[in-house]
């Protein structure tokens, strides 16, 4: 049931994002929401955003709540995953930077720029390690 709710919510967000003129920050928030709900199967996902340059203003919308400490989060979004310490390293980590993705084995996925375009990618090995099953619409973004 949760999966259906998540999928419907995701679809709604997608359609809304395309039909209504939205800002860059709103698009990023919606992408964070899709990624968060794809990795963490909860109605409300607690997200720690370590990369302040990715989002200038964090706003608790679309079932995402931003927390200040990484230990309190369900999902960690950073640009340098290796700088995380302790328990935070065991949580699902998503990176916003190509270098951070390539230089570390920790990230479960990444959103970075390549060839002038944003690229969304999920690492199969880490998805399996964290027992994450992605919704159908994101299966194409999984790489070995």
């Amino acid at each position, binding site marked *: 049931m949760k999966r259906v709710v998540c999928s419907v919510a995701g679809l709604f967000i*997608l*359609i809304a*994002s*395309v039909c209504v*003129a*939205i*800002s*860059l920050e709103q*698009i*990023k928030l*919606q*992408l964070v929401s*899709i990624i968060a709900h794809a990795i963490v199967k909860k109605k409300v996902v607690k997200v720690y955003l370590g990369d302040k340059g990715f989002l200038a203003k964090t706003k608790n919308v679309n079932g995402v709540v931003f927390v200040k400490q990484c230990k309190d989060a369900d999902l960690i979004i950073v640009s*340098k995953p290796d700088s995380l310490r302790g328990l935070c390293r065991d949580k699902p980590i998503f990176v916003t*930077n*190509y*270098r951070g993705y390539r230089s570390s084995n920790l990230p479960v996925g990444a959103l*970075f*720029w*390549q*060839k*002038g*375009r*944003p*690229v*969304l990618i999920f690492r199969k090995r880490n998805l399996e390690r964290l027992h994450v099953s992605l919704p159908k*619409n*994101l299966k194409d*973004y999984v790489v070995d």
Partner: protein
Amino acid sequence: MRGFLCIRRIITLLLVFMLVAPGASAYTVEQLLGEYAQKADLSTRTKKESAGYLIVFTRADLDAMKIKTLSELVNEIPFLRYNENAAGLSDVNYTSFQTNTFNPIVVYLNDRQMVAPFSGNGFQLLGQLDMSYIDHVEVYLGIPSYEIGFDTAATVIKLYTKKGYRENATVVSSSIGSRGTNDTYVYSGRDLGNGNSYFLYLDKRDNKRKKVDFYSPYFHKLYTLSRNKYTYNFYGEFDTGNFRFESQAVFGKMDNFIGQSWYMTVDKNRTDFRYLYGGIYYTSSDDSWKASINYSFTSSDNTQKSDGPLGVYLKRISPGWPGIPVTYNTLESKLEEKLSDVKVIKTFKIKNDLFMFGVRGRYRGFNFKKNQTDNDITLPGSKFSREYVASGIFEAHHMFNKRNMVVFSAKLEKHFVNGGITNFSTYGGRVGYIFNSNRWTFKAFLFSGANAPTPYVLYRQNLLGKKRVSPQIASALSAEITYRRDSSSYSLLLSDTRVSKAIYFSASGYRNAPSITWLKSVSFRYRRDFDPYNRLYLNLWAFRLTDFRSKRNLFGGYIALFNRIGRFTLYNCLSYRGLYGSHRPAYNLSSTLTYRATRNLVVYLKGTDLLNRAITTDYYRFDPINRHLTVLKDVPVFDRTVWLGVEYKF
């Protein structure tokens, strides 16, 4: 009639396709990412609406077009008609018997003005070079703000190179086209962390143009005129966030078409050229300070051989006599050009006001190392060989509230020239008002300024022993209104320009026009974004020039469609230019079909001038001794070319 039906059929097909294609695709995460890319391109990049009337060609546009040269973009820029001069170089302002008296287009590569120290025309330098290292393009119509660059013109084209932190890849691409035209490039860009990134690019291009056959009844011989260009282009950039180091090297050989040949009887006309550039740019973390230092060196060796004469010089027989005219049929010349500048800009932001002050010092020098004709005769040269230009700019923005804004800018420039030419000053000033709401944008600008004669004009005038011509003075009033509704936008632009003392070439040298030149223009633009990957651009415009010699009306427009269906990306553009002198209306259909075979491999098929009805130009040459006119009519300046290309990302 058949041609018209053919064009009508194509337009109908394009419209049907346009209506059907967007409905065929469903919304996906890919489309949300597309929206992200588009918004990032248009908002966080360098779009400066207050700077002027702006048209942006985003990375997605250029990628879909698989753009090969800057000349292709001219079809989608209002009020311009692409043309090539007698040397086969890009020149929108080309008219027979005239030389460039001012720059109708100013081209910037990032923040560097592309300017040839001698001819002054940057569009000639870049018009037919490769574009694969360019990320996106901004085109400013009218005279934009000095924020865009110290040197402005009726059209300012800003090319922004790809950035390492947005590439994160190594890409190799190769394409082969009609007549053996081929192009290979490789680039690598990486985000190195801590704000550092690099981008390196190397391109080799063999641009084989259509040959033009010319039968000379005077010499009873068929001549084949060539405009081929063979170039290597290297571009490198290292960015630390605050500092950016830029370098470029272009090496090439080109065939210079008719060149100076009086009878178009060219045996050989070849130029080997080298362009070397290095620059350092500084931007403070809060953007309040900007500084740069640039140096470029250009060297070109030209060899011309012709059955008919290339020119004439006065051979002195005895002192006191003016000499007898002697023609020459071969010419070997070597020109070296240097350009360097230092620039500092300081910006203050105080509540709703912004103040910008800038100063620039520029040196440009050129030297004919060789200018030798038959029998080792060295042609006389002008003493004018260098120019120092000191410039100062000031710009102020005041926002009354979120919707209303006024802008004011001014520039003063002092030219210090050698060779006995009197130093001179130029100036410019601009006031504007901008209204912006969710649906409506209104902009109006009033500009007045003096354009310095190009160094080429100063050189020729000095050589002829004539008095320096005065700078021409342009005053322009323009306004644009834009209405946005959902995913559509409509813009109407009107402009009226008055040019006094316009510089033109006459039999007795360069002169200032005796009466006012008027330029009136109107443009309508429409854009519809069906979704991030399917969009339509439409532009219709008219331009009228009235000077003391003639009246010229120029009409143009284009319709362009960008579509994505599954793994295919399509670009189709039909452009039109008409009623320009005696030339037939010109239609240029360009199409690109891109297939993304895998995540890393892309294959594309691209065609330009598919209707074989693109712009043509007439060339005239005159023998002043025998009073003989040679005419070469209807030479296409675009070649019908089809490319097949492949691109692989490592």
